[in-house]
């Protein structure tokens, strides 16, 4: 088998070193051939569009007339645009309150489920289910109905003597409703936390018990540091994810970001500017600001992670 005719012919015609480099050349060719689908997509759907959106962000462009170069005007206008500033505020509120709450719920339930008991598979699946359907239009409609005037949430609260008269129409309550929607989808980070918790060696907890450590000390001294790479991963992914919320905001506010702009999320405003007002340059500037902000946040996360994320060699 090893001495196939082609191989021996090649060996006869060329000395050993060129044969090796010929294989390397073949590998290079094969590598780029196999990479072709991704490479094409990367150039045509990511790099190309990124460059042109950077260019467009310095222009006035309405899709019909040629783009007109206006320099930094779009960026300057953004910071005087009250709706833009509002969308930044709405999105920041959502990210700053929603993400930690969601991760806290995910970690708490993961710790509850991290024991050998019957029915763990059922619980994991049940808690994960909302993550799969949460971003759909269907659930946005259900949420709107549940938190609407005399919906089940309102009814439930009035049982306790609280009367809010619906959350959907009340600008002070809509953010709470949106945050509940994201917290409800804690299943995806929970499952990742669970996988992380399973990696923590149980003898660490046993040793801590012998030393008389209580649950709080065990959490602070064992669970948190051992889990920190997973916490970091979830925090990064969920934060980036939260910045991009769109479908539920669109449906709940009828595509307008109301009431009183309280659900005017960044991406919804970007969509309205670009695809309703056809201010493509302006929307591109917004898109680039988002990239810059997400980039800075990612960088900050990675820089600060050195002080609290522990990658230990012995933890498999």
């Amino acid at each position, binding site marked *: 088998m090893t001495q196939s005719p082609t191989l021996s012919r090649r060996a006869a015609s060329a000395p050993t070193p060129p044969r090796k480099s010929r294989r390397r050349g073949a590998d290079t060719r094969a590598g780029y051939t196999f990479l072709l*689908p991704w490479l094409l997509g990367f150039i045509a759907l990511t790099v190309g569009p990124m460059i042109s959106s950077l260019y467009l962000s310095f222009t006035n462009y309405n899709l019909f007339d040629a783009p007109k170069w206006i320099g930094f005007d779009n960026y300057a206008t953004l910071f005087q645009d009250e709706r833009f500033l509002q969308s930044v505020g709405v999105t920041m509120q959502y990210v700053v309150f929603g993400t930690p709450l969601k991760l806290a719920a995910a970690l708490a339930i993961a710790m509850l489920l991290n024991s050998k008991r019957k029915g763990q598979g059922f619980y994991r699946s049940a808690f994960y289910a909302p993550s799969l359907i949460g971003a759909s239009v269907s659930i946005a409609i259900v949420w709107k109905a549940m938190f609407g005037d005399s919906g089940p949430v309102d009814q*439930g609260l009035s049982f306790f003597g609280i009367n809010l008269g619906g959350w959907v129409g009340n600008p002070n309550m809509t953010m709470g409703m949106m945050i509940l929607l994201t917290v409800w989808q804690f299943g995806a980070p929970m499952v990742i936390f669970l996988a992380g918790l399973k990696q923590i060696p149980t003898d660490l907890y046993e040793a801590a018990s012998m030393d008389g450590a209580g649950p709080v000390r065990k959490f602070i001294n064992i669970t948190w540091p051992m889990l920190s790479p997973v916490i970091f991963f979830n925090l990064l992914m969920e934060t980036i994810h939260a910045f991009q919320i769109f479908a539920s905001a669109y449906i709940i506010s009828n595509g307008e970001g109301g009431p009183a702009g309280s659900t005017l999320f960044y991406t919804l405003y970007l969509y309205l500017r670009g695809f309703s007002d056809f201010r493509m340059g302006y929307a591109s500037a917004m898109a680039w600001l988002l990239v810059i902000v997400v980039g800075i946040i990612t960088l900050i996360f990675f820089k600060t992670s050195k002080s609290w994320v522990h990658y230990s060699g012995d933890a498999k």
Partner: protein
Amino acid sequence: MTTMATPTQNQPTTPATPAPVYNPKSESTTVKRIKSTIFHVVALALVAMVLYPALWMISASFKPNSEIGGANNALWSANFSFDNFVTAMEGIGGVSTLTFFTNSLILAVGAVVGTVLSASISAYAFARINFPGRGLFFGMMIATLLLPFHVVIIPQYIVFQQLGLVDTYVPLLIGKFLAADAFFVFLMVQFMRGLPAELDEAARIDGAGHVRIFGSIMLPLMKPALISTSIFSFIWSWNDFLGPLLYLNTPEKYPLPLALRLFVDQTQSSDYGAMIAMSVLALLPVLVFFLVFQRYIVEGVSTQGLKG
């Protein structure tokens, strides 16, 4: 937990008669039972809370309109009926719901085929072939995982518009065939890296090229990764809203999420029941997928870090 660990560990060291060994043991089983009962009560209460919106949706879809918003919030209504579903199946704007279903199905199946093909081929290059530039491209692929995709939608729209491809499925599917979902490429790279290198070395010695190694060795071994990818790519495509919202403007071509929005816009709150019944219909394949593949889905998430 802490209190239970000590007596059981002392057992082997203390030379005890059968009786004292038996007693703490039976005590600890009752403690265990109580703890387990508390656990299940708490966990089930939490499950009920978490699944309540889904249950409410399903129950409301069988209720007459008058009972959905009103004071009657019992999950089960005495006036159970399929009327809402009958109305929902009629569709909207002269297009039947069956058409929306078919459209969603075409898009989702197209997404699965495209993603599985392109992501596995590209992942093979990243995981198994040594060539200059691989590290650089791999880094760029990872970077696209973190990139907000809003930065590319405007130029993409402009290009597709100039090519006359708006209101076709091409803009919605082309990315799937070009491995644009970096998540799936990454997932498959990680999976392939876990397969033993001896496999392809042996095949190479036997004279197999990359095409054969990929087709007859890697692909069959990658089944778990291919199944996870298929499930998630189907569900994500099924639930996708922004893509169809941007690119489609003929109702006959709408997939379900867009049809649902049209339904909401036109009926407003006049026919709540039908609206919720249609929401249930739109989620049906996802729910069925979940019930059938739940183990696979949940394990896929924990091992590969997928997002819901």
